[in-house]
């Protein structure tokens, strides 16, 4: 374990910046924490709960895949993939780090998504242990320890110092370059205990997944509560787009007159034109679409992924849903542990 003072952070960022772009949560003009590129003078926000998740760095909202041109019967295809630059993201919460376990299981299994893999290879995640969780936090429900996040490097913050520990080779290589002072973990343990105490007091601390998981499809699919829960849902994509684990995308084409750009962009299962097939849409009503989102996270995903749930309890959808419908309300109603 290594230690540095909070004041020396800028020096550290400057050091990392020599070889890679650094991103970290910075307050924007509305006072909301947003991942921003570090430059001299850019200050780390005290807030870890960013508006959008880290997902964007590895799986951007819009991404060009290829270009092609058709003339007569000839198709000229242009591979526009480029090697990603090295980058480091600092200040990632435990829940957001966990989201990559979920995304990796989708994108990195064969056939591997080379666009995503490329960015994963070049990205280093430096997590920071939570000290001030929000009332909307429920990572605990999914077995995440907010006080000991994963990531290539884990950082703990106390009043005046930061404690660094590398978890991966990539992390270790980076940490070695920083030449920090070595130290023991007593301060970190003290901080962990303090945070753990707070975690117990969170309003959603008792939320459990006991009635969800693989194999629950038959039991939950036809529950009448889906209808009442979905009744207020607007069918917008806010929850999907702020979610760190939602990974659905649509592939579209843009014809600029001189050629076609094939790109992908995020899609939402809440949208009426989601996964349109030859026969049209396979989920015609909002109830079906609403159910899909939650069944996927809480039943289908764990069923296919050794019981791992598709939600990390980051709480963004709780904060952002225009009509305050969210996964917690669904779990409590459908799971019956209200």
């Amino acid at each position, binding site marked *: 374990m290594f230690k540095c003072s909070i004041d020396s952070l800028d020096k550290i960022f400057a050091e990392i910046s020599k070889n890679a772009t650094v991103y970290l949560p910075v307050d924007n003009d509305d006072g909301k924490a947003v991942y921003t590129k570090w430059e001299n003078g850019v200050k780390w926000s005290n807030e870890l709960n960013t*508006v959008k998740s880290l997902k964007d760095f590895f799986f951007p909202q819009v991404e060009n895949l290829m270009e092609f041109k058709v003339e007569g019967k000839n198709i000229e295809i242009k591979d526009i993939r480029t090697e990603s630059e090295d980058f480091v993201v600092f200040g990632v919460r435990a829940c957001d780090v966990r989201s990559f376990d979920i995304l990796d299981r989708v994108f990195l299994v064969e056939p591997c998504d080379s666009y995503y893999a490329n960015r994963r290879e070049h990205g280093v995640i430096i997590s920071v242990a939570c000290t001030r969780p*929000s009332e909307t936090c429920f990572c605990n429900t999914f077995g995440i320890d907010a006080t000991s996040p994963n990531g290539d490097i884990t950082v703990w913050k106390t009043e005046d110092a930061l404690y660094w520990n590398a978890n991966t080779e990539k992390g270790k290589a980076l940490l070695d370059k920083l030449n920090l002072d070595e130290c023991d973990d007593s301060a970190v343990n003290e901080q962990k205990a303090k945070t753990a105490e707070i975690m117990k*007091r969170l309003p959603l601390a008792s939320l459990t997944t006991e009635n969800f998981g693989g194999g629950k499809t038959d039991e939950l699919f036809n529950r009448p509560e889906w209808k009442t829960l979905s009744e207020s849902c607007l069918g917008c*994509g806010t929850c999907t787009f702020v979610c760190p684990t939602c990974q659905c995308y649509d592939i579209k084409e843009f014809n600029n007159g001189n050629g076609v750009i094939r790109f992908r962009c995020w899609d*939402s299962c809440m*949208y009426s*034109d989601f996964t349109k097939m030859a026969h049209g849409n396979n989920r015609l009503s909002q109830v079906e679409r609403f159910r899909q989102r939650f069944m996927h996270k809480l039943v289908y995903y764990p069923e296919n992924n050794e019981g791992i749930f598709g939600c990390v309890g980051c709480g963004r959808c709780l904060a952002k849903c*225009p009509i305050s419908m969210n996964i917690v309300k669904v779990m409590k109603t459908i799971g019956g542990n209200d």
Partner: protein
Amino acid sequence: MQKISRDILVEKAISMLENGDVCSVLGWRKGEFDYDITPAVFTDKDDIKNNFVWNDFCGANFSKYLVQKTRKAEGKILVFLKPCDTYSFNQLLTEHRFDREKVYAIGIPCEGMVDINKIKEITGDGISSIDCGDKITVNTIYGDKFDIDATNVLSERCINCKSKKHVAYDELIGDEGEVLESNRFDEVTKLEQMTPDERFAFWQNELSKCIRCNACRDICPACTCEKCVFDNPKSGVENKAAANSFEEKMFHIIRAFHVAGRCTDCGECSRVCPQHIPLHLLNRKFIKDIDGFYGEYQAGDEVGSRAPLVNYTTEDIEAADIFEGRDN
């Protein structure tokens, strides 16, 4: 704090359900915390007793829900409408979007709704309870307690409330309010006075935050299209995400244009935007221009009124003359 107590509304809703006057009630349902209130359809009186709320967080406008809900309803639906909601209600009626016969509308006065984001700016995260009394009392899991004046945390749209008057109802609870003199165009004017470069920078910055979640569109009581042009691949403007700054602008310009003259300035778009883009400033610009060019017009003021864009006079201002006297 709202003048009308929750109990009066609950009592009214239950009695109407019991008498069979209505078959369902559109109201606000209690959430996980004290502020995350969800619009809901109640059909059960115990459910109403336990879960119906009416407090400073009941911002949701039910008018748009009536489009879908009246289609399926067997009998009448009881809906509670705040003054600003009634304008949307009338506008939807003007556009024949729901059957007035299927609705029993109760107007309730509103003292303005508060913005949880503004509260959190004061209290920080970790709210454990909020009590909407004379003062808004907030307790946090960190043991802090705050007494906040509601006027300091009113949502933007309520600070510039245009009207406390109900323009539509079957029954009114509480007193009849009045149309207010508001300063709602001040921000628009401020923008107009900037240089084009500044305006461009402002909107470029704001609109680039857009994640195209469509929350603004989907909450908007004027956006009730059976199929939105942005979801229709044949429309030529369909897109799911803004691929670049053009598409960010395209979506918001076209959306604002489509609701121009029909937008009642309810402010829901800005309220729900997860990125806090001041979308109402687009709609208000149209309202301000319409007022300035064609005379004052409030969408939804009365049912059947002719919206400015489906109307004209032979003396209307020429597009070439709109900037006269404004040189930036």
